[in-house]
């Protein structure tokens, strides 16, 4: 059996808070001894209230955040042991989609430039035909290539961000609240797009969200985080039907049935 695409063992992250003369540095323990794994082809949902450390945890998978303790193995490699080059190779395999596409896309770059820069980062070039095919795979027409971010809507931009993540054919995509900055009407479209990618291309997902309703429909398993710790894990339906931990119960209760995307 192959190694899981992502395996975290007992990882912690303490952020240093600005100290000063005579003041003690306390630090903020954002992630506190967390272990989790994402199997190949699986979508793991990471839910928790804001400030629970889920985004920090997700960013350890591709080395954007270095853990203070514990081991992160992505694609079988110890992320902490990778050099600069190794880290770049890893990021080829592990792509990321961010919360607000208007912020995560450079306002001075056209869609073409944004996508070309992904290939350039790994010393590759690409053709217009390839870029058109890439946009098509996220449901956008070729006319988007020449557009700047301010010339497209939030939903369209998030599709561009997904295209950027797909450009190098990754094995794992970290989606950090990919729909929370979008209109309710386009959320389901983006989530369906991600679900299709998982099903059709076998891409694994680490899907971070504070919305359990989203996670329930689009993840195979769920991990619930509270104050830097994982308090409950299990298959999505089970967690939703019979939540064990009070935090999970609160999240389930806070999910309005009427707003469930279908």
């Amino acid at each position, binding site marked *: 059996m192959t190694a899981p695409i992502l395996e975290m063992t007992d990882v912690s992250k303490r952020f240093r808070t600005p100290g000063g003369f005579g003041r003690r540095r306390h630090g903020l323990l954002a992630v506190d001894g967390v272990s989790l794994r994402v199997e190949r082809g699986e979508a793991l949902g990471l839910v928790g209230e804001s400030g629970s450390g889920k985004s920090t945890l997700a960013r350890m998978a591709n080395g*954007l955040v270095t853990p203070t303790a514990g081991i992160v193995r992505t694609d079988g490699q110890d992320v902490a042991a990778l050099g600069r080059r190794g880290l770049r190779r890893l*990021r080829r395999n592990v792509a*990321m989609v961010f*919360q607000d596409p208007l912020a995560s896309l*450079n*306002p001075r770059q*056209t869609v073409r430039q944004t996508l070309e820069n992904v290939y350039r*980062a790994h010393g590759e070039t690409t053709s*217009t035909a390839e870029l058109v095919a890439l946009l098509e795979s996220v449901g956008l027409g070729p006319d988007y290539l020449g557009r700047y971010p301010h010339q497209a809507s939030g939903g369209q931009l998030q599709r561009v*961000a997904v295209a950027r993540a797909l450009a190098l054919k990754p094995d794992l995509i970290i989606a950090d609240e990919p729909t929370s900055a979008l209109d309710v009407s386009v959320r389901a479209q983006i989530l369906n797009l991600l679900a299709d990618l998982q099903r059709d291309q076998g891409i694994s997902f680490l899907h971070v969200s504070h919305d359990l309703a989203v996670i329930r429909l689009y993840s195979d398993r769920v991990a619930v985080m509270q104050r830097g710790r994982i308090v409950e894990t299990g298959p999505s339906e089970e967690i939703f039907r019979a939540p064990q931990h009070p935090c999970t119960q609160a999240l389930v209760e806070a999910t309005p049935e009427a707003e469930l995307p279908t």
Partner: protein
Amino acid sequence: MSIAEIQQAEGRRTSVLRRFLRKRSGVAGLVMLVVPMVAGLCAPLLVRLEGQDPHTFHTDLLDPDGGRPLGALGGVSAEHWLGVAPVTGVDLFAQIVYGIRSSLFIAFGASILSIIVAAILGTAMGYFGGWVNAVAGRLIDFMFGFPGLMFVIAIMAIVPPELPRGLVLVLVLAFFGWTVPARIIGAQASAINARAFVEAARATGAPPGQIIRREMMPHLFGLVVVLFAMSLPTNVSVVAGLSFLGVGLRGDVPDLGKLLSDSLPWIYSGADVWYMLFPGAVVFLIVFGATLAGDALRDVLDVRTEDAA
């Protein structure tokens, strides 16, 4: 849509130059800056055309009582296009075009050099943060605490005569000129470094060089242009001030600042109000033109205002 059509549609974006030329204030500013510069560059040619040189005394054109130039507008005539200076009667047009040469090119050199240093250091401070930012920040603090002008005066006073004074001026002014722009660029760069699209680029595996060049520098370019435009008139006046103190350009090298400070007593006493007019107008043109052109260029480079304009 065929691939050719797609590429054609993208090419419709108007070039920076064309958009700049559409801005009237920018073009006016550029003209105001370029005309004196060209005049300075072609100084020997222009002066030969006028049939004068910057150093010959024309005492016959002066009022023997008080040394004022005879005639209207400070002695403007077909021979002396901008009149002559009081006391010596040297040709003002020749003095001014040669003066532009020395003043403007020293100011330009110092501004370019200091802004380049500031841009490189500021970007590094913003991108790397941490100890790079701390060390460079303390160095800037140290430079702030330094009495820069005193130091410049001291250095210029002891420069060995065999060194080219103009070049030394450029280096000394640049040495004290990079700190403020570096701090401003550094603050802006670290703000950009914290934005999500830089993190997104990092997440794609982009190397530092690519992130700095493709993601950060386009956002800093406008600021660098504006800082350059602000530094240019400052350096023009500092060069003038050093000449006034006698530690700038030496001897009989014409210089706009020297002309301005020479003309001051004549303005105060009202004896020859025309002496300052033409050198003053040239300095005004350069400073105002640099500001207008800098503003227009910043507007043009800001892609997001493209639709609103």
